[in-house]
């Protein structure tokens, strides 16, 4: 690792808002950098305080366990002072607008603002009003770029390169920002992306995303190198988008039998949190082909890489 003073720029943008803003070489750069952090994170001494003195604010308008703690740990390992804004007890609940909250926080001179919000486009809106680096930790049904990056990192550790792979993204693509970010990133990196699920859970115009849509697991998983399951929220499986959890599980739940349609040894992924017995069977989630826990581990490494990369574009670093 080069010293802080000699870290060359990795990405052009000031913020990380969407995968679609990143070029192939920027993605590759982030994957390489994150791979080195993954090694550091397995040491007893994980500190790598290149961002000592910086301030990171996590502003999560939607509940999150893994993403928020992942960003918090990533920031702390790089030496940031990390503050978690508890939105439910903040001024937002007193009627302050999202923008006013962000502007207020910005006035305290943070270096990073990590934002999750339930409405698509909110994070980009905030980024236009603040001077710090904004990281999208999930906005509505739009993007979740660090998830796609950590998924790519996880795949690369097992299958070397993304180029030429076939990845099947299964389930509720319609509501999934994870799916949108993954489709954007994987397609960019030369992966053949498939989406698998009932048409009720596919966004309209999905064919124009450059992916192939399958309505059966048998066809969709055939020969896939990676099977990426998506979470199906409870309120969407009671007669609205799909009839019931049991019907969904019957046709789309990833069981050992259905996994056999994929390539032998295909990786099984899930961004979490999982609904065992709905979209995935426990035997598969905890099975030999599952890399679900590794995804969580890579999450911290990738977020360190993102913080590192964005810090290189800050005025103080220029």
């Amino acid at each position: 690792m080069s010293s802080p003073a000699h870290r060359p720029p990795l990405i052009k943008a000031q913020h990380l808002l969407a995968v679609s803003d990143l070029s192939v070489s920027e993605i590759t750069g982030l994957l390489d950098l994150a791979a080195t952090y993954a090694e550091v994170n397995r040491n007893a001494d994980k500190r790598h305080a290149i961002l000592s003195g910086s301030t990171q604010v996590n502003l999560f308008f939607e509940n999150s366990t893994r993403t928020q703690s992942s960003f918090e740990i990533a920031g702390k390992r790089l030496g940031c002072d990390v503050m978690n804004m508890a939105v439910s007890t903040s001024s937002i609940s007193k009627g302050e607008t999202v923008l006013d909250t962000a502007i207020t926080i910005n006035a305290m001179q943070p270096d990073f603002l990590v934002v999750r919000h339930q409405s698509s486009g909110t994070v980009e809106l905030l980024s236009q009003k603040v001077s710090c680096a904004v990281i999208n930790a999930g906005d509505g049904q739009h993007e979740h770029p660090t998830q796609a990056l950590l998924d790519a990192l996880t795949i690369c550790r097992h299958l070397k390169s993304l180029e030429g792979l076939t990845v099947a993204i299964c389930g509720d693509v319609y509501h999934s920002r994870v799916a949108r970010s993954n489709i954007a990133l994987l397609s960019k990196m030369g992966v053949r992306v498939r989406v698998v699920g009932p048409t009720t859970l596919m966004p309209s115009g999905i064919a124009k995303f450059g992916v192939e849509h399958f309505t059966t697991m048998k066809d969709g998983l055939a020969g896939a190198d990676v099977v990426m399951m998506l979470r199906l929220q409870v309120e969407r499986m009671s007669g609205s988008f799909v009839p019931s959890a049991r019907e969904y599980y019957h046709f789309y739940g990833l069981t050992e039998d259905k996994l056999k349609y994929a390539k032998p040894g295909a990786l099984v992924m899930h961004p979490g949190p999982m609904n065992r017995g709905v979209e995935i069977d426990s035997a598969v989630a905890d099975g030999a082909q599952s890399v679900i826990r590794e995804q969580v581990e890579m999450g911290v490494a990738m977020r360190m890489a993102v913080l590192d990369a964005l810090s290189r574009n800050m005025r103080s670093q220029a």
Partner: protein
Amino acid sequence: MKRAFLNAQLPDGRGGLLIDGDIILAVGKDVTAGNVAGAEVQDCAGLMILPGVIDMRVFTGEPGSEYRETLASASEAAAAGGVTTMITMPNTAPVIDDAAMVDFILRRARDTAKVRVAPMAAITLGARGEAMAELALMKEAGAVAVTDGVRSVGNAALLRRAMVYAHDHDILVVQHVEEPTLSGGVMNVGERASRLGLTGSYALAEVMLLERDIRLVEMTGCRYHAAQISCAESVEVMRRAKDRGLAVSCGVSINHLSLNESDVGAYRTFFKLSPSLRTEEDRLALVAGVAEGVIDVIVSGHDPQSEDTKRLPFAEAAFGAVGLETLLPVSLARYHNRDISLPDLVKALCEAPARLLGLAQGRLVKGAPADFVVLDPHLNWKVEPANLHSRSKNSPYEHTTLEGRATQTWVAGKQIYSYAH
């Protein structure tokens, strides 16, 4: 064992029918006394042989209202009417809205019914129009299509999603076409209803929902069937949709081909139907619609109602009429008076339902199941409530003399009915 039925009138000319066990072995003019060696022979001169009727709209009371009709009693009526397959509606108590209930109907039918039974299951839970039922699991269990039966799915967002979902699994969506927010009348709107002091039901409610549904079909690609249309304008809507190449089809009840609003007379509740009987112009347009193939299917709409639901003031009485036993005879009247040709009648009563529902029966062809009916097309008989096989006697044709009826009904090569003069 082999059986031969010779010298009969078939849908497309004179000839014979040869069956072996439960399968049709040969049919047509080449099946003659000379080439059916070893078969038990029946001379059917003067008689007609048609495929057994597949009645695409049958309500029973099982489960929940067995006093009105069971699968067994309905099957007796079906057998006497030349109906060899009943497509049952999900509006029972409880509603047929999950795989276990579909399985229940199939098992009860297997154990108690004389004719074949293929259930339709509900589109929405409880047929309440609120949440999609387990369409694909019910299809796996044996449901041949999905419908909310007597109710329309009025919520466009829900129906759209159900259609998208049904399309994934190649499930036929069957709709009762009546815009729920424009319904409520008890007979066709107009002068007659007004003079009788009855609230009118708008044909427009049917046309509107049909037009909306066709837009949804266009959007989703789903296979769609309007269970019953009742007015001239709906025929034109269907014609346009078919001209555009959409996967749509529709049915009409035999009552709407034979009766009109004036038959309601002085508050006769057996003529209170859903949809309402319309004008004579509407009836004529429907008959022409069948003859031209715009209307695919003729159904009985068999809906057994008892004294407790029919012997009431008109406005308070239930909708519906029994019809399994009279469907074929009343249809024959349309053939006798040259409104509809025999092949077109067979198409609407047998072939189209089989095609839409993916059934092997419904045709007299080699290899098909031996489900057929032997008719005496000119036998005069009187519809007397006491002689009807259904547990309920609410027939609009009571005390009417009809020309032609089934004299033998065969299902899977077994004779299940024989008419005693």
